[in-house]
């Protein structure tokens, strides 16, 4: 289990004549990734969701708060002692076209980390070959077909599977999928999502799914937790289905309203929430951060800072002074003929 506790991260403003203000990428975020769990972070670009993923991989430092891996606080460790913990977290990039070395075959790409791994677990070359075939099988690829091929000979979906297999070579605890399906062909997207879902059982990993597309978050399996992040803060949290169906925060509702409606099979929900303007990072509100864009903001939203509050007796948390459920999600019309 990995617990992210009140983590903050501020990027110093870059120089220049006007001396840019610093950017608070994370303003105290709590996220728990249970073993074999499925956790999704959603929010628009620049909300800090990617920064959080990078902190977990050790690519990025955190300023305040703590990351606790299986009870071990990383804050207490020296940077070099943190490395083995970061190895338990592997990142799957958005772009499978640039994540693989084009001059090496898939066989070579997978053999390198496995050879290193073999030294750790005291295994021989045979083990490397066996494990390589095993991992490819796990991600649904035919080793005989894939091993001698170069990345350009594979489709985007197959490449993404290779990237996932490579991430699995070090026996990670958590796979971070940062927009991992947005560049995959539509007909193959669901296959990758189902693979991530299945890996929770077959490889015993938990999945941290980072996306701006809420719909895909539904497909990484049961027991999924959804965190909605706005300007470096969690504004709503709960089980994925609950947050989608019962969203109480206007920002979550605006994300859900933005999903295109498939006319003919779906009808738009009775309500539609549209932010009153685009995200402007220069505006710092003393109250609720979403207040400048919130269509329902009242006077007290300008001063009162909403804390994450439990909604009734549910597990759902939200950070809004005036939470109200609005039906923004599209509803299916009578079954499609398909």
């Amino acid at each position: 289990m990995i617990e992210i506790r009140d983590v903050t991260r501020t990027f110093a403003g870059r120089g220049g004549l006007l001396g840019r203000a610093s950017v608070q990428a994370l303003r105290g975020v709590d996220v728990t990734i249970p073993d074999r769990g499925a956790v999704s972070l959603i929010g628009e670009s620049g909300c800090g969701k990617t920064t959080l993923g990078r902190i977990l991989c050790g690519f990025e430092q955190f300023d305040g708060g703590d990351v606790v891996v299986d009870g071990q606080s990383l804050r207490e460790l020296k940077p070099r002692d943190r490395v083995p913990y970061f190895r338990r977290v592997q990142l799957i990039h958005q772009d499978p076209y640039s994540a693989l070395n084009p001059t090496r075959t898939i066989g070579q790409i997978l053999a390198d980390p496995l050879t290193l791994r073999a030294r750790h677990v005291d295994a021989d070359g045979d083990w490397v070959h066996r494990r390589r075939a095993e991992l490819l099988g796990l991600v649904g690829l035919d080793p005989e077909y894939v091993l001698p091929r170069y990345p350009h000979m594979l489709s985007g979906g197959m490449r993404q599977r290779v990237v996932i297999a490579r991430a699995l070579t070090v026996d990670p605890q958590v796979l971070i999928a940062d927009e991992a399906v947005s560049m995959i062909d539509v007909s193959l997207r669901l296959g990758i999502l189902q693979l991530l879902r299945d890996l929770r059982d077959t490889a015993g990993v938990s999945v941290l799914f980072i996306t701006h597309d809420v719909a895909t978050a539904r497909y990484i399996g049961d027991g999924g937790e959804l965190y909605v992040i706005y300007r470096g803060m969690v504004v709503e949290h709960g089980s994925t289905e609950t947050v989608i169906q019962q969203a109480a925060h206007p920002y979550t509702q605006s994300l859900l309203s933005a999903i295109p409606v498939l006319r003919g099979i779906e009808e738009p929900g009775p309500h539609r929430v549209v932010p009153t303007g685009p995200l402007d990072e220069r505006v710092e509100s003393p109250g609720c951060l979403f207040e400048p864009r919130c269509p329902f903001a009242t006077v007290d939203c300008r001063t009162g800072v909403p804390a994450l509050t439990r909604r009734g007796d549910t597990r759902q948390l939200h950070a809004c002074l005036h939470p109200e459920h609005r039906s923004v999600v599209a509803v299916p019309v009578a079954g499609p003929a398909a």
Partner: protein
Amino acid sequence: MAAGAKAAQSQPAQSQPAQSRTGEHLEGSAAVRVRDLTVAFRTPEGLLPAISGVSIDLARGQITGLVGESGSGKSTLALTLLNAVPDPGQVTSGSVTVDGIGDVLALQGKNLRRVRGASIGYVFQASQNSLNPLKPVGKQLLDLARSHGVGDLRGLVREARSLLDDMGMNAERVLASYQHELSGGMRQRVGIAFALVLNAHVVILDEPTTALDMLTQSSVLEIIKKVHARRHLTTLIISHDLAVIGDLADRVAVMYAGRIVEDGPTQQVLASPRHPYTRGLLTAMPRIAGDIGEARSLPGRPPDLSSIPRAGCVFRPRCPLATEACAAAEPPVTVTGEHLFACFVAAKDLS
């Protein structure tokens, strides 16, 4: 769409009289008519078709959506409408007729350059990255005007301002900005403004919202709808995302392996898809509503130029319904009302 039809016929006066407006006028409701178009690419393996015998009408005043996966030929088709197929590609047969211009494929040199931009606007894929980083947007606008020999520069800038205002942006600020000072959504809107500023009546948008996040995508789609209606455009929108097309388009054409396999009014195609590929795409889409358990990914992978089946139905290797007949010949187009599809099995079901 009577208003749209009227506006398209009474084109706004062009600033240059040399504009070739002598071309034939299309009869009926189509503003662009593509007939039996084949585009092939020269490769070491020979001449391989990226588009095979495609026929499609873009209805005047309507939004037509073209959906397909990578390699399905949708961008090549769109470029053909500008007669801009990149080398080593070549149009081997067919015609592209645009209302008021005539056969675009017959145009060359100066006449062709005039038509591009002035009559047919094109918003390129990743157009948010297609601005010149060294010049402010306003300067690039003037470059565009000069290369099209626009006399009334002030008028053009006024037009651009009103377009940018329409799209909810501060026109003064945008025109004075360099591209890095604008967000992705703003750059995309500038791309749309550039495509429309010369008064094009046909506009082609290639993946206009790919790489934008949901909120920006939603606002760009709203803007496309608004500008389309206000300027009585004939719009072609290309996307790999059926959801975007389903939200926006009046009509949808589904492309697979260089063919249009299904084409019809959006609601009809989505609610009762005929072609197994369209059905497959719909069930493979992660959706916010509906049963997760019903979602199925499509087996196999989209073919590329060299792996498109040479005989029989191109979708056959991935099709759950394939029969022997499908291997023997390409399915002909079946027409029911406004709904067209090319599938033996679906045609049989219908009769």
